[in-house]
């Protein structure tokens, strides 16, 4: 059965099945958009926390690290209750839409981007700051220099966040509802086809997912390599 499924899976992938392509595009755009938003919020936040000493900083860092293991179903459930017809954001009608999924994904990966950025920035050399200050840089310029110095670690944060979104199913299923033509992604479609007993199609979708993650990682590696 596994061999048959594998053979069918490979055939489906190479025939560039229209549905498979649609799900892959949707998965990628959700992951891209959520990662972009989470990076715009999380990278500055990570740098700010790293560069400032304040009371309760240790507690903040501990909470952030705990949130790295935030369960997808908990995020999904929480946002579901916000977006539900009877919830506080119900009038926006975002449940079972792509923007609804993106809200959940951003919450899921914000801690990842923030915590990884924080670690990367905290590890940059103290001398970088001293040199920048000595050359007469203002606070914003110092932060920019620190960011440039830690870009390697920050890129890792972005890759990790993107990978988390593209591969997770809890948030996408709960908030998207796996609606055909609207919110069905590679992962939710895989779950559906496993439930329906269509293992060949499920396996094909799983392989496409792996291929997508692999290509994105290779791409980021190339970008990182270019930075060296």
């Amino acid at each position: 059965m596994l061999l048959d499924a594998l053979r069918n899976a490979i055939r489906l992938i190479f025939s560039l099945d229209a549905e498979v392509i649609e799900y892959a595009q949707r998965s990628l755009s959700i992951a891209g958009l959520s990662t972009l938003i989470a990076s715009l919020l999380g990278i500055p936040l990570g740098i700010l926390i790293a560069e400032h000493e304040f009371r309760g900083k240790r507690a903040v860092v501990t909470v952030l690290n705990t949130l790295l293991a935030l369960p997808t179903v908990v995020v999904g459930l929480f946002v579901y209750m916000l977006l539900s017809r009877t919830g506080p954001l119900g009038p926006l009608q975002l449940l079972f839409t792509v923007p609804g999924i993106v809200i959940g994904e951003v919450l899921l990966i914000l801690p990842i981007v923030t915590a990884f950025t924080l670690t990367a920035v905290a590890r940059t050399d103290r001398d970088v700051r001293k040199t920048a200050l000595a050359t007469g840089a203002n606070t914003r310029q110092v932060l920019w220099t620190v960011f440039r110095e830690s870009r390697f670690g920050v890129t890792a944060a972005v890759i990790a966040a993107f990978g988390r979104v593209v591969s997770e199913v809890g948030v996408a299923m709960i908030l998207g509802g796996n609606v055909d033509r609207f919110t069905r992604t590679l992962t939710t479609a895989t779950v559906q086809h496993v439930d329906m007993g269509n293992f060949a199609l499920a396996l094909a979708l799983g392989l496409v997912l792996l291929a997508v993650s692999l290509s994105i990682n290779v791409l980021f590696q190339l970008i990182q390599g270019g930075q060296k």
Partner: protein
Amino acid sequence: MLRGSKRPSRGGFRAVTVLSLLLAACTAGCGSTDREDAAAPDVLTLATTTSTDNSGLLAQIHPDFEKRTGIKVKVVAKGTGASLQLARDGNADVVLVHAPGLERKFVEKGYGVKRHPVMYNDFVIIGPKSDPAGITNAENPAHALMLIADAEHDFVSRGDQSGTHEKEQYLWAITGNYAEPDPETFVLRPTGDWYLSIGQGMGKTISVATEKQAYTLADRGTYYAFALSEPARTDLAILYEGGDDLHNPYSVIAVSPNKHPGVNFEAATKYIEWITSADVQEMIGQYTVQGKMLFHSM
């Protein structure tokens, strides 16, 4: 990728050890249950639909079977399509499903021995109480779907090749050119943006329809379970019911030992004799949830 991460810390090692121990414990645990199943011949795997399992009927009647025969029933609840697939792969001994068309094919191809009618109930079309598409006055269920299509009001479809999905496609087929078959899967469905196919179980479908204030086709049992629960899980109302087209018969079929010699055919035969017996038929007819009868015996 992070600088300095190549140096594994002591904490890391400890975490790995704990994780491996946990994994080992789990595998040992799971392994032993598998062996128990294999050694004990008195376990029957029943593949059935979410609607029968969610209704609570099986939990109510199965203790009687276990008491009489000493055979334990393992219930795997999926859609009808998936249940039949489980059986085709030899992963179930007997199926209790509700899609006459798919069942006939299953028996014709030699996977199942024979269809035995067990019970029936009916499907209902539910939707927002205000009934924006005005289906309450529809002449028949297919006409009701046509009114929804004309109004382009949201309709949520199971879309998972379950018995309910099969019934929905049957109704679309009656409407004529309101729905077109998908060129690859031959699944019959309307093309409008108001038609939401979610590929999930009955409960999830009612939840999505409730959120969207959409129409959907539901089996009466699951609908009652959602509407009469405390607090109610749906505020949708039954807007169309009755008539032969919404009839929903359930059958039980033993998986053929000719296709899969490993199946527990003896236990499956006992199960079919039991569930079609007068005593159990009476139990099925008397089963109620919140005072509502969910299934009629044959």
